[in-house]
């Protein structure tokens, strides 16, 4: 089994190395597909014992960094090893399965592209890194692959890195909606997007790194031997009260655990595009749409949710409240932005952010309320329907000659029935209508948020306790509204711009097969194994349950919450869908609610604020300021041959001291003969004599 476990990530890595080092002209695509297919089959093979018997598979840990014992810190080894539990197994199946699907789809979508083979190499690297996160048996290994996933996404977003900024892109300028606003067009380009994605992720990763270091410290201080960061040892350390015996920043015990947990969660906020670190994800749509399908829908962004789920046993109630609130704000904010987007892909991008926020709400509700399994279930169902939506988007955009403005679409139903039908199903799924997958997972989420709010309301202000739940209900309606808007504007009605849609067509048969297979997973019965939409249990619940017993909340209470939620959310769904169909029955709306519209269309100005404070302010101004304070003005730097002008800077002070010394030296007169060696000789002599004199 060890070999199998190792082979699953090793195969895509080998494919990447072959494609990167040997650069074959042909066949790279099928090599990658073959590799991924083998990985997928091996994943299926290891999934059987894990999911059916609840077995946990693992390989021995390999010490990666082993530090000898110090005075008060025991010897410890940071190691790498594989640990596959039910949650990881489902994720592994999704990663390998969807990767396979997207690779096959890409052979159609990218055929004839100038750097076609490179996509498959970089994609394989990304998949390798993602599997590393899923299979990791400790927090540091997760961090290592976490960063590699960042590189994978960097490479894939920058697939067309030689493209200019959209402001200089005549096609984009001709294609965009007239009222387009909110995007910093002078900056947005694949090269910018890949940089932004990586750096924004790093903002979160700083927290991850600091958090894991705190965990390592406390775990070692608590007497843990071996790898202080393995899941088992972390659990042991927290359970044994290691946090009670140390203090930092005035915090100890639960307080410190909260701090460490939130630090690590910062990492998850970066990867899973949570407010306020979400701004990289919409820009990342500059990459190929199929890359978006896997990275920005199904796997990379899911890594943050996955990590939060892994860390759930270590998140204190306060940290969980933080998680829910971040999720709630993100879900609502992104949904409002999605309401007014003109760009077909942008709607999906913001919808993804919003759905990730949902998952965080669920996880933040805690394990006792069922939020853990609900959050993860939604992660899984969302991965599949959002991947389908993105692949559908690829089909639409490809069919419409790279146009992305929904205002120019319309009536595509007749030209691309496969795409319309499958994305239609996915739209119904994301709306959470009965019989569709999200009806099961999202309702479970909202129900757990309800239970959590009921549980919390005794301890804190009502708005604080009930906020996440309220946002989650509100966002359900918004989701239905914008998704219906997108689908109806694109596929229903008549062709509004025949030039754009004239040549639209469904993709190649192999891509259709991919769409069809993914569409199957939009149905609830695939996930719950039951045709009854109200059967709340699932085969997944069974697989996830043993890890977290749900004895905190009584069955009756849970059942009640589920029923309440179901009524409410179906109501919300019909309201959202109905309103959307009504407002957009004749194509794009001409009237808008002005102040709100511009707030949403300008992305709540968050992107601009980041740009102003972080890029322009800190990065450019701050950088120049510090550079000047260090070496002096640029004038000073270009006139170094002669006596450079002094300017208020560290280097200027140094030169000033030197010049002062020169003046004093001049006063000493005759000794000065202009040769630096002589000066040094004098100085050495004098100081040496001085030392000699003083000592003797």
């Amino acid at each position, binding site marked *: 089994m060890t070999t199998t476990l190792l082979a699953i990530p090793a195969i895509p890595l080998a494919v990447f190395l072959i494609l990167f080092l040997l650069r074959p002209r042909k066949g790279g695509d099928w090599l990658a597909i073959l590799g991924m297919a083998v990985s997928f089959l091996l994943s299926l093979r290891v999934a059987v014992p894990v999911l059916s018997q609840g077995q946990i598979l693992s390989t021995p840990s390999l010490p990666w960094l082993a530090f000898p014992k110090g005075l008060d810190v025991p010897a410890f080894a940071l190691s790498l090893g594989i640990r596959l539990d039910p949650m990881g197994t489902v994720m592994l199946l999704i990663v390998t399965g969807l990767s396979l699907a997207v690779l096959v789809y890409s052979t159609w979508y990218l055929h004839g592209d100038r750097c076609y083979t490179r996509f498959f190499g970089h994609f394989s690297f990304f998949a390798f890194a993602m599997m590393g996160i899923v299979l990791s048996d400790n927090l540091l290994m997760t961090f290592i692959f976490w960063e590699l996933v960042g590189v994978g996404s960097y490479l894939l977003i920058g697939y067309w890195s030689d493209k200019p900024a959209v402001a200089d892109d005549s096609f984009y300028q001709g294609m965009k909606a007239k009222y387009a606003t909110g995007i910093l067009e002078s900056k947005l380009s694949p090269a910018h997007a890949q940089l932004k994605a990586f750096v924004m992720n790093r903002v979160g990763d700083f927290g991850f790194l600091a958090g894991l270091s*705190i965990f390592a410290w406390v775990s070692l201080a608590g007497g843990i031997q071996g790898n202080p960061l393995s899941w088992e040892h972390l659990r042991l350390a927290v359970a044994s009260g290691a946090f009670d015996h140390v203090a930092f920043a005035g915090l100890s015990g639960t307080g410190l655990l909260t701090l460490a947990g939130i630090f690590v969660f910062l990492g998850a906020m970066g990867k899973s595009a949570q407010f306020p670190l979400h701004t990289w994800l919409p820009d990342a749509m500059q990459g190929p749409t199929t890359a978006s399908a896997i990275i920005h829908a199904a796997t990379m962004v899911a890594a943050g949710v996955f990590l939060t789920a892994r860390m759930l046993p270590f998140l204190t109630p306060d940290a969980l409240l933080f998680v829910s609130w971040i999720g709630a704000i993100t879900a609502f904010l992104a949904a409002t932005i999605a309401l007014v987007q003109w760009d077909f892909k942008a709607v999906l991008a913001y919808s993804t952010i919003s759905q990730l926020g949902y998952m965080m709400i669920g996880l933040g509700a805690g394990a006792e309320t069922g939020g853990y399994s609900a959050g993860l279930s939604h992660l899984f169902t969302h991965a599949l329907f959002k991947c389908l939506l993105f692949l559908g988007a690829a089909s639409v955009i490809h069919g419409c000659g790279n146009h992305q403005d929904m205002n120019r679409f319309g009536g595509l139903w007749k030209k691309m029935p496969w795409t319309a039908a499958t994305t239609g199903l996915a739209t119904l799924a994301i709306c959470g209508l009965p019989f569709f997958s999200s009806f099961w997972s999202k309702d479970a989420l909202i129900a757990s948020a309800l239970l959590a709010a009921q549980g919390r309301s005794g301890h804190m202000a009502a708005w604080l306790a009930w906020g996440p739940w309220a946002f989650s209900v509100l966002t359900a309606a918004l989701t239905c509204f914008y998704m219906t808007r997108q689908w109806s504007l694109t596929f229903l009605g008549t062709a509004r711009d025949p030039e754009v849609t004239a040549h639209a067509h469904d993709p190649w048969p192999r891509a259709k097969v991919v769409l069809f297979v993914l569409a199957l997973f939009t149905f609830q019965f695939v996930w719950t194994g039951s045709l009854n939409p109200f059967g709340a249990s699932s085969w997944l619940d069974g697989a996830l349950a043993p890890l977290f017993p749900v004895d905190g909340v009584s069955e009756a209470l849970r059942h009640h919450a589920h029923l309440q939620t179901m009524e409410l959310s179906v109501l919300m769904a019909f309201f959202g869908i109905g309103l959307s169909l009504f407002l957009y029955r004749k194509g794009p709306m001409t009237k808008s609610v002005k102040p709100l519209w511009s707030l949403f269309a300008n992305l709540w100005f968050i992107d601009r604020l980041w740009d102003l404070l972080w890029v322009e302010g800190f990065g450019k101004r701050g950088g120049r300021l510090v550079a000047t304070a260090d*070496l002096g003005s640029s004038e000073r730097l270009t006139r170094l041959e002669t006596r450079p002008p002094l300017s208020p800077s560290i280097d200027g002070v140094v030169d000033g001291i030197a010049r002062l010394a020169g003046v004093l030296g001049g006063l000493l007169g005759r000794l000065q003969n202009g040769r630096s060696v002589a000066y040094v000789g004098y100085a050495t002599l004098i100081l040496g004599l001085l030392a000699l004199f003083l000592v003797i």
Partner: protein
Amino acid sequence: MFDSLFLSLFFVVPLVVALFLWLVPQGRENWARAIALVASFVPLGMGAALFVLAARAGRDAFLLRESVPLAPTLGISWHLGVDGLSATLLFLSGIVGTVAVLASFGIKRKVRGYFSLLLLLFAGVNGVFVALDMVLFYVFWELMLIPMFLLIALWGGEQRRYAALKFFFYTMAGSISLLVVMLTLYLKVPTQGVEVSVTPTAALSGLSVAHDGSAKVWDLPLFVKDSAGQSHAVAASVVVKGGVQPFFAQVPRDFDLLHWRMLWRFWTTQEFLGLNLAAFAFLFFFLAFAVKVPVFPLHTWLPHAHVQAPTAVSVVLAGILLKLGVYGFLRIAWPLFPTVAAAWGGWIALLGVVAIIWGAVAALGQTDLKRLVAYSSISHMGYCLLGLSALTVAGISGCMIQMFSHGLGASLLFLLVGVLYDRAHHREVEGFGGLAATMPAFTAVFMLAAFSSAGLPGLSGFVGELSVILGSIQSHAGVVAGWGPDAFRWFGIVASTGVILSAAYLLWTVKRVAFGPLRHAEQANFRDLTWHERFSLYPLAILTVLFGVWPHPLLAALGPWARDLSLHVASAVGGF
């Protein structure tokens, strides 16, 4: 005799070849190049072999060490030794040396003189790494200063005179303080020597056996005292078995660094100019070495020197010369004056953290590629200072690993800037754009170097930074320094923000140089890496990946050393 002869080769070979190069006839510049290359392979091979041995031995001991009296009346000896730390840095010096020679093949003016000075420089560097006698150390320290000054002043850019002078005065100031403190320490030891007690651990680590079976520690007879106060020699076998008596040794007045380390308690009892001698000496050593690191705010010579130096000299400067400062901390300042190092640890760590942030933000504001990389060096060397003053095993190991990986990473970056300069004859970031299409191999290595420098796991840059941050957050050094237990945890957290900033300035640079549309039409026909550029870049890139994926050898060679220093300081201050 073997040890001292073998170790002498590290500097004798470059030294002899450097002199021999002047005999190469005019017009046969290629001979000079070839000879220099071959000569640079010798220290590389020896360094690599020693590094492998150190990593396999995995303990804190000298692999080779020998002391031959040179001027017994003055207490100067030909004392050379190699342990895990020296072996690792000799290996790095070998790599950087070979790469620098390769990267200098494009030098057209005064070729013989250039290579001669380059080899002379490496003779000095390698000498410092093997010297265990303060006088030898000082001589080698001075030996590398002159060639470096001339290399910048003669083969440098337009403002080379200013930069070279600045470099010269800064390092000369360092040398003077080194000289002063070295003489002071020597003269403070009474002529009859000082009797010191030796802990069993220290006795074991320096143990050697005399002809009659009695024990010696660092070549000094070890003795025990009976109740009457009479001294008796002690058998080596007793020491190995763990004798119960306190051991003593009489440390004579000499320049032996290992003896000076045994005197650490003695230094703290002496006064100099009304100051505690240990504090005074530590301060002077610190200043002497801090100039080289360079420690904020003594760093401003570095950007000038880098910008004006030819590519290969920049590589040497960043790749190995900066490490000498930290080596001085590790070999001399910290072990000799552990109590002072611990007491001032808070301030020193603060300087490190300030350097990390200041260097990174200053790098964001640079328009000259070389200056940008120079500031990234300042930022990265800040981690060394933080890890070292954290005094945990992880922190000190991290400091040393960071030195090694920065040597690889900075060399790569400077070579890459050199590649661009060769083609465009300028180094302005804004003067490039969209080179990825015309120079794919260059872009790939550039990205690798940038990611490694930005601390990407899987590349060597991450290992050092991670260890330093872990070591800092675990550290109790703040208590001893009087800064409270939280100080180093905060330092660790603030240092973690370096991962944001380094990614920002490095990847932003990659973007501006390599990505986007081609910005300058004439750059469309830039040549991708030539074979000899590949020859110097690829080995560095491979090592970066190798030690990033498998850092175990580094830690095996350096971990025991870090542990020894950590315990030495801890026992000196009475535990943390």
